[in-house]
């Protein structure tokens, strides 16, 4: 009798848990944010690769920026995005473009003779 009760309790707990997980899964799917598009960018003296990046308005993006030589900066002022980019790691910056057009991003950490030309362009389309 005791074993029967114990089995019954375990079965009930399992069913309740399964129902909760299932419900949670449906909720998450219904409320999930659009998937982020990942853009990988490499910084080195004195350029970014790629130096022209096309994005869609309203599409969330994450820039994964790495440096192959020394510390650089990444500054995309039009969208209030900036970060230091240190060698040996990946710097992630997230944003969602909310306007169309051509926007310049620059290295804003002085890195040498060609620093002032170290820039790229983000093109945002509809």
């Amino acid at each position: 009798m005791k074993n029967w009760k114990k089995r019954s309790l375990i079965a009930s707990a399992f069913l309740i848990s399964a129902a909760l997980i299932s419900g949670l899964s449906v909720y998450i799917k219904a409320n999930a944010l659009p998937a982020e598009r990942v853009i990988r960018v490499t910084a080195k003296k004195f350029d970014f690769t790629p130096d022209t990046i096309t994005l869609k308005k309203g599409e969330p993006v994450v820039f994964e920026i790495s440096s192959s030589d020394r510390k650089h900066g990444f500054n995309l002022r039009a969208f209030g995005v900036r970060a230091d980019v240190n060698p040996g790691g990946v710097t992630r910056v997230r944003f969602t473009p909310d306007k169309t057009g051509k926007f310049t991003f620059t290295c804003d950490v002085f890195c040498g003779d060609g620093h002032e030309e170290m820039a790229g362009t983000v093109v945002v389309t509809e």
Partner: protein
Amino acid sequence: MSKLDRRGFVKLAGLGGGIVFASSLGRRLGFNALGSALDFANGKAEKEFYFVQLSDTHWGFAGPKVNPDAQGTLQKAVQAVNSLEEKPDFIVFTGDLTHTTDDVQVRKDRMSQFKDIVHQLKIPTIYFMAGEHDASLDRGDAYQQFFGKLNYTFDHKGVHFIVLDNVSDPGAIVGESQLNWLKADLKQQRPDQRIVVLTHRPLFDLYPDWDWSTKDGSTVIDALMPYQNVTVFYGHIHQENHHLTGHIAHHSAKSLMFPLPAPGSVEKKAPVPWDATAPYKGLGWRNIEAEAKPVKYDITEVNITGG
């Protein structure tokens, strides 16, 4: 042209706002004894003076298409300043004394060569400050060995000068520590104290996409704002630019190596190529005459000429 006549000319050329701009006449012609005597009789002699601003000499730069006389332009400015009939009280160099290099020894060699050249100036008092080309790659280490402190103050005939460093941090900031130093210094000044700030980068957002700004420059301007008589002279952008933030005027100087295009006027910032039909076009230095009543600074631009 006498001083009185010159002033008349300057007023005609003036743009108001307490700051007057003139052509390259003036100082090179000297002032007559009558003008100086009148000034002395009016009690102005103690409060009026003039100084020379040279900027962005980029010693070590090489690029024949931009400046085929890269080894001689600074010397031409030195000779021109030495030939001034009335000597300035002092000279300021507002940064980028040398062109940047990754090689520490070459950096020091350039600083040494620059120092040798400017020691030919026959003006005993020279104030230096760093540009990012001098100081950003080693946080001002070599610069300080050759030229001393990165930020400091000095007083001259009633004007309080503040030299601000917005270059030794490669991220183009003044930084919290220096900002606190500035605020402590300003606390000691009267609200109507005549203050001149000397710096390399613009303190306001002139054109940040071209690195023509200081990231925390607005905090500096906020600290200066309560003071009624503040003027900023700076370099970095290799051309004249005159801008007001509230009542604070900001004046950039020309380079002595290569001019740069007007802010945002071209897609990519790059030195303006040498114009063989107009050698040294866009290169020059300036005289700045400080007047006490009313407080104003008469700026006289002087172009480099060949020969």
